[in-house]
């Protein structure tokens, strides 16, 4: 009986130790709700405009015309940003930037 109780106590202690470690509950890493969240500057309509301008500059810098998908992505991006879907628009504009960088060899 004492052996079983000791084993049980060790098991409870191990569980108490391992479960928090296992799921990474660290008091220092945990972010309480009262810490103010920092906004990302790349989730704003201003960044949409910046990306759109960069797409335009990169497209004009190309020797040959850009592929139609670049135009399509850029158009969709601008439209979404105008409609208030900022993250969606930025995502399409970024894809357009990646394609243009690949074409120009800058990536």
């Amino acid at each position, binding site marked *: 009986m004492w052996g079983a109780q000791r*084993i049980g106590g060790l098991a409870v202690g191990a569980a108490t130790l391992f479960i928090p470690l296992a799921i990474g509950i660290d008091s220092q890493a945990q972010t309480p709700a009262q810490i103010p969240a920092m906004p990302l*500057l790349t989730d704003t309509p201003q960044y949409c405009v910046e990306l759109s301008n960069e797409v335009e500059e990169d497209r004009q810098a190309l020797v040959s015309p850009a592929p139609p998908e670049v135009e399509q992505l850029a158009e969709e991006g601008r439209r979404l940003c105008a409609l208030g879907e900022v993250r969606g628009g930025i995502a399409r504009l970024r894809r357009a930037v990646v394609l243009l960088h690949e074409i120009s060899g800058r990536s």
Partner: protein
Amino acid sequence: MVARAAGLGAGIAPRRPPASPVAPRVPAHPRFLHSAALRFAAVYVLLFGLSALALAIFLWWQTAGVLDRETDNAITADVQSLAVRWNQGGLAGLIITIENRLAENVDDNAIYLLVDPRLQRVAGNLAAWPTSLPLDRTWAELPIERAGIRSLARVRRYNLPGGFHLLVGRDVQVRAELRDLLTGALLWALLVVLVLGLAGAVVIRGLFRRALADVSATAAAISAGDLSQRVRISGRGDEFDRLSETINEMLERISRLMDGVREVSNAIAHDLRTPITRARSRLEDAALHARTETDLRAAIERATADLDGVVAVFQALLRIAEIEAGARRSAFAPFDLAPLLADLVDLYSAVAEERGISLKLQSPERLALFADRELLQQAIANLLDNALKFSPPGGVVRLSAEVVSGMAAISVADRGPGIPSADRARAAERFFRGEAARHTPGAGLGLALVQAVAQLHGGSLVLADNLPGLKAVLRLACTAEPEARGEPKAMPKGAQHEAPAADT
């Protein structure tokens, strides 16, 4: 004792024997927490739970843990490549690289912040250095806001030369949600495991109690006086069946011993009453009718002889009981049987010659045994005694010994009337006397002692038809040396001993 106590004077009370300690009686149904079945069940739940916990930790480590490690590795690789860019292109190169990476961040999860020594923003998509991030910490989790929605980022700080600080991170909100989902699922799973474990523990406890219930019930019935009860064997051949078999063997032995005690009591009542009564009658007759001192002495001597016979029977009974109880095992020692057989043949040669019986010996030169020499000598002497008693004149009694398959076999064969097959099974019972032995002296204890000696040595007494006559074989499982086992050795020359018959 009373008088002695009185002579000691007043005030000294006779001493009472100390009260024997009475063991506390275990209740018929042990309290719940003291139940052995509960302990087994608790151990089962514990092991089951620990196993499930270990599995859950392993699963978490392999899923959410992998995701976390991948994020950290990606951030570290990003930091290292930016450090290289800083070394190559300086501040300007680093700024351009950060802006390019943000522009190309199709996954929309990158976080960069480059600040000067005054913690003023130089590049990146964070507005300012997070005040909740201490400068002495390399890794941290940072709450961020994405299009008005609160999210979580994991960031790493990197100090650049010149007092600049670089913060590189990833949006881990999805991964955090996945981790929380996985953690919740595992915790619920552990709860289910606990419930299943408890259910299993109940089943285990029931099986344990059921397995022991048979033993307990049988023991209780035996305690109540029914020695015929035996523990039920399930036939699965598991540990409980072995325990049951062992208990049943013990009960069989106890039953045999009890039967033996009963037999002895009955035999004493019936068979010893006669000589005791006869002795009493002779003494009574002598007391009433003896005319001379000579007559009186003669009657006393005859009564003494009768009582000596009774004492001899009691001694034999006690010896048999001692042997059956195994009290003689401490007298076991290694010795050579061959000289013992030769001595017995020498001892009985005169008797054999007197009766015109040929006594022959067939024995290897050496036969090592680990046994009680004195008991074996008595047992073999009893067999020789019986053989010579029942052999007709001109007959042959053959004493032989050999080792077969590790067992020593000592046989005494005669050409007398033998024992009918119907009586052979009972011939070794105490006080049993066959029809042929009715008119010969004896108490019917000789073969009982031989059988007891055989059983003490892990063997048996086998009675067979010698066609004609009886062949009694004493088998012993007490050979001492490897060379004494295996096939019997060839009979060396001069090993046979023959007493010449009276009429030649």
